[in-house]
């Protein structure tokens, strides 16, 4: 017996246990997201995948679909809240797109474009978070970390290393590295790790390689993220 739910008035099938995000992706419908990656357990931390269900807005990546559920993925009310969430992410970190080498290949930027974010809104925090360039192949720009834990999950669940973790609480939450010095260069992180290639912003970057793809040929220069998705966002990182 097939099961179905409604997404923006369109009837879609689902398998019991599937999240709204998984069912939508299976049907080829884009729901904006940052911390979601189908290879890892849902996290629900970025809140960008908000969708309307009844009178509530819930994260699509953690909410299971139920029979006959009516999901709003495209109303102005939903987009407004997504934009507000993104505005806060931009204000919390140092996301200076004009000078960032991820610009054009950055999921955070592309999702902001998709939701119609025109400019920063909240006063920026301008956090002072030094770049860790101690590793020979990669740097970490903590100012661009949005605490999505994709690197944490990839390192733990795929690489079997647990290089990364989140420490602190609330506004003091921050990414930490499992090494005596706390530096990436003293950890067992390697260029071949999956964790090196999952960051949805410009926080984890290969060394000596920025801006190699010309403007106009970058992933999101040509198509919006709703069309090309995010699986190819890291393809330039490997020689």
């Amino acid at each position, binding site marked *: 017996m097939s099961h179905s739910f409604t997404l923006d008035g369109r009837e879609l099938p689902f398998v019991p246990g599937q999240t709204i995000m998984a069912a939508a992706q299976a049907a080829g419908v884009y729901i904006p997201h940052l911390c979601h990656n189908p290879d890892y357990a849902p996290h629900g931390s970025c809140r960008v995948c908000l969708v309307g269900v009844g009178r509530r807005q819930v994260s699509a990546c953690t909410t299971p679909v139920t029979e006959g559920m009516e999901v709003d993925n495209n109303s102005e009310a939903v987009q407004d809240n997504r934009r507000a969430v993104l505005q806060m992410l931009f204000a919390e970190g140092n996301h200076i797109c*004009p*000078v960032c*080498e991820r*610009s*054009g290949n950055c999921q955070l930027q*592309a999702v902001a*474009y*998709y*939701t*119609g*974010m*025109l400019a920063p809104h909240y006063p920026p925090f301008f956090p002072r978070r*030094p*770049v860790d*360039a*101690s590793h020979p192949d990669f*740097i970490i720009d903590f100012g661009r970390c949005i605490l999505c834990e994709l690197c944490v999950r990839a390192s733990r669940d795929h690489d079997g290393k647990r290089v990364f973790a989140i420490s602190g609480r609330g506004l003091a939450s921050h990414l930490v590295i499992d090494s005596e010095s706390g530096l990436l*260069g003293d950890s067992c992180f390697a260029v071949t790790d999956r964790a090196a290639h999952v960051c949805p912003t410009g926080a984890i970057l290969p*060394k*000596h*390689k*920025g*801006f*190699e*793809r*010309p*403007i*106009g040929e*970058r992933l*999101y*220069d040509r*198509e*919006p993220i*709703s069309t090309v998705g995010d699986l190819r966002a890291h393809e330039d990182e490997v020689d």
Partner: protein
Amino acid sequence: MITSLETARHPETLKRVCIEPLTRVEGHGKVTLLLDEDNHIRQARLHVVEFRGFEKFIQGRPYWELPVLVQRLCGICPVSHHLAAAKACDQLIGVDQLTPTAEKVRRLMHLGQTLQSHALHFFHLASPDLLFGFDDPVAHRNIVGVIQDHPQIATQGVLLRKFGQEVIRITAGKRVHGTGALPGGVNKHVSLAERDELQKDIDQVVDWAEGAVQLIKRIFLANSDFHYRFGAVDANTLGLIAPDGSHELYHGGLRVRGPDGKTLLDHQDYQDYERVIHEEIKDWSYMKFPFLTQLGPELGWYRVGPLARVNNCDSFHTPLAEQERQDFAAAGEGRPLQAALATHWARLIELLHCAEAIRELLLDSDLQGTELRLKGEMREKGIGVIEAPRGTLFHHYEINGDGLVTRANLIVSTTNNNQAMNTAIRQVAGEFLDGRELTEPLLNQIEVAIRAYDPCLSCATHAMGRMPLDLELCDAEGKRIDRLCRHPDGTVERPSATTAD
């Protein structure tokens, strides 16, 4: 007389006249004049009141960001900063010689940049003074007046600039703040289709540039007695020079000549710039005052930019510009021309040279090469110097073993011209304003002298890609009369135009 006008003995007893903001220059600055009760000028200063913190806030950033990051200093000639930083980064990654394709793409980018910047300055900013006179009514003395009275000249100015911007777009990816130059090379070549796009217009561009030189020559020589005197200050001149002594914008050694044209320094490796140039700080301006170490701060200040370059070089390698340079040199009767307004003449000779050099370079098949980038052994220090449209531009970076910037020093063209501009306004104030009742046209003469140096203090931001845009056109009362929206999927919509929010 001129030097004494820097600091008055008893400023508390004097009247203060302030020209703020300076108009038709890039960025924000002001001039203060102190006058006694008989309107004699006792002090004249050009103040640059903006603060630039780039040297500080790039500390701790990865070196490969520098060409893109530091170009944000400026929205008018960002390519100059982009290339100077890229040249410094070449040094940091141990690349002393680029591939032919990389060097030629960068040179093409730089020629396009210089062409558009010179066109912008002459046609949009300076031509109203020169076509209408310094005392023309201020409401008419602007680019709108030029469009009304001389539509052909205005159109040529706009289209010359547009062509230069297209050269930048093709080589750097965007008209403003592109990413073409990387440490050790470039990220794209010029395709045959892109080359053809530029080639179809280049002959017209050369013709217009030649016409512009004839125009400024006519204007300058029509009132030559005044123009030779106005803002004329004897200055040392500094700039890059090609190995054969010809005019050079992208790479070469430093040449310094004295006010009489005598060569004081030649083919000096700019990696030693810290030995050649020192910087003095004065408490009334955020801009430093560089000087030649061998001559000291009193005598060692110098001029950079078009006038310095055309005076400094032995020749142009492009024929039309070389012919014009010879006419220019002949006007000096054996001495370098020192008049402020001769800068416009020199600038347009360079404009012509850029147009000719672009035409020549477009024929070079190396532009279509695929060897774009080289790598070498990392170094701790990198210095890149380039001739920006406004003059010699120094970028100096030092990095640690992790590749993060530990120290930076930038000496931009306008800083190099600081003392020259101050001396020029003191000359104008002393000779043309002293003892007179100050009026707007007289004060404009101060601005005309500064404008000749085309000081650049501004910066701008631009967006690209799938960024949504919401553009509104409002009338004088702030009421919206038109609106255009670009959505994230690239579609453009014109919502109901007159809906008021």
